[in-house]
């Protein structure tokens, strides 16, 4: 009954096998937790977290070069890597990238440009996002910054999950390729809190399937869930935005988070809600040092 209620009925044979395994893992984790009851609320140490996070993946996949984690599942599976390399010869995000370049250069009605809203005219700066804004006390993602820029110049915000946002971020990522992710947590208790909230969101189980982000992307990267080879959490945002064959098109970080939530049968939050922004902040911070590889293509 418990299995029936909490687990997918129609994830397919392979999926169910994984789910059952995940269930036993979660039960084991639960037992372990209870054995250690009353875990002290230890102090937040992002730098230590990031080291531990990266070490976990480096040890789990000793054959994978650190920078290669920015290539997601392709770093872990040879057959998929060959399909990807073939696709990269003329990648499917090519059209979006060109559209993004045009959109980025197109002036607003007031004559100003996106470039006027960003450091270095917006070129080669993707690795600095998300940022913590000490004025508002909130995390500012690149997608949010783009819409804030539009609104500051009298333009309507565009959809966080739409093609234009994907194209703009694709172009900005492309101009930043190879630059190591460089997320900063300023000396502000609210920044630490945002980081910690993002971390909690990442590890919290949700949805009817009772999966957390970590269930798939920390405990089981490289495993197949249905046909998909799960991407490692380390470096997962470095490739954003992505062209997904499954979507037959481009998707932003917002779209990816929403899809993840619905895949575990949770009701997704609003794009760029505080939770998603904090999640992006945490997940980016722990991948600091890995190169921007976006735009990416994924199954």
């Amino acid at each position, binding site marked *: 009954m418990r299995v029936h209620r909490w687990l997918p009925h129609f994830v*397919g044979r*392979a999926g169910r096998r994984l789910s059952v395994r995940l269930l036993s893992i979660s039960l084991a984790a639960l037992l372990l937790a209870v054995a250690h009851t009353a875990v002290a609320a230890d102090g937040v140490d992002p730098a230590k977290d990031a080291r531990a996070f990266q070490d976990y993946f480096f040890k789990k996949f000793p054959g994978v070069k650190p920078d290669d984690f920015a290539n997601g599942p392709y770093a872990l599976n040879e*057959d*998929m890597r*060959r*399909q*990807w390399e*073939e*696709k990269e010869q003329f990648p*499917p995000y090519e059209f979006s990238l060109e559209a993004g370049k045009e959109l980025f250069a197109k002036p607003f009605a007031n004559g100003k440009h996106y470039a006027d809203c960003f450091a270095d005219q917006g070129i080669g700066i993707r690795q600095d996002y998300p940022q913590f804004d000490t004025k508002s006390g909130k995390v500012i993602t690149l997608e949010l910054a783009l819409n804030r820029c539009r609104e500051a110049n009298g333009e309507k915000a565009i959809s966080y999950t739409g093609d234009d946002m994907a194209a703009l971020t694709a172009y900005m990522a492309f101009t930043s390729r190879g630059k190591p992710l460089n997320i900063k947590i300023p000396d502000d208790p609210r920044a630490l809190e945002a980081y910690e909230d993002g971390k909690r969101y990442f590890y919290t189980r949700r949805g009817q399937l009772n999966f957390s982000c970590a269930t798939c992307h920390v405990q089981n990267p490289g495993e*197949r869930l*249905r*046909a*998909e*080879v799960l991407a490692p959490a380390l470096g997962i945002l470095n490739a954003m935005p992505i062209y997904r*064959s*499954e979507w*037959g098109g481009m998707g932003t970080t917002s779209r990816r988070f929403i899809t993840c939530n619905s895949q575990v049968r949770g009701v997704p939050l609003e794009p760029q809600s505080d939770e998603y922004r904090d999640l992006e902040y945490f997940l980016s911070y722990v991948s600091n040092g890995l190169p921007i590889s976006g735009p990416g293509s994924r*199954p």
Partner: protein
Amino acid sequence: MTSLDDSQPVTRRIVLRGAGSVALAGLGVVVLPGPTVFAAANDKYPEDAFKQKDNKEAIRLLYGRTAEPSDKIKLDAPEIAENGAVVPISVSTSLADVTSIAFVVPENPNVLAAYYKIPQGTLPNVANRLKMAKTSNVIVIVESGGKLFSATKEVKVTVGGCGG
């Protein structure tokens, strides 16, 4: 294209394809005239072959004969497609005088996926990306010196391309 026609033996395929167009015209199907480059009668788009549900019938309509397996064809396709919507498949061959290459996916709703005409001076190597509805063999047909050869490889598809 005319140089190709002069230099290659007239195969039954040309006759058959001509007949196919007549049949289509008879049914009131409008065959688009297209740009002048498609003018030669035997270069018409093989519409009937592309509508076939059965791979043998599609090959028969396209070529009017059957193919025999050849180890001189290298068919490169993934063991497991990362997504059936985009399956990279390529072929190269050491066979001589190649005039066409066709890709057939028997489990797709329409079995003929692509048909490439290879004029003289063009290498018999093609790479493309195909949709696969489900796990299926991929058959490549190479027309060489007026004869047909084939190679086959199975590609497992767990997320279907819902197409083809």
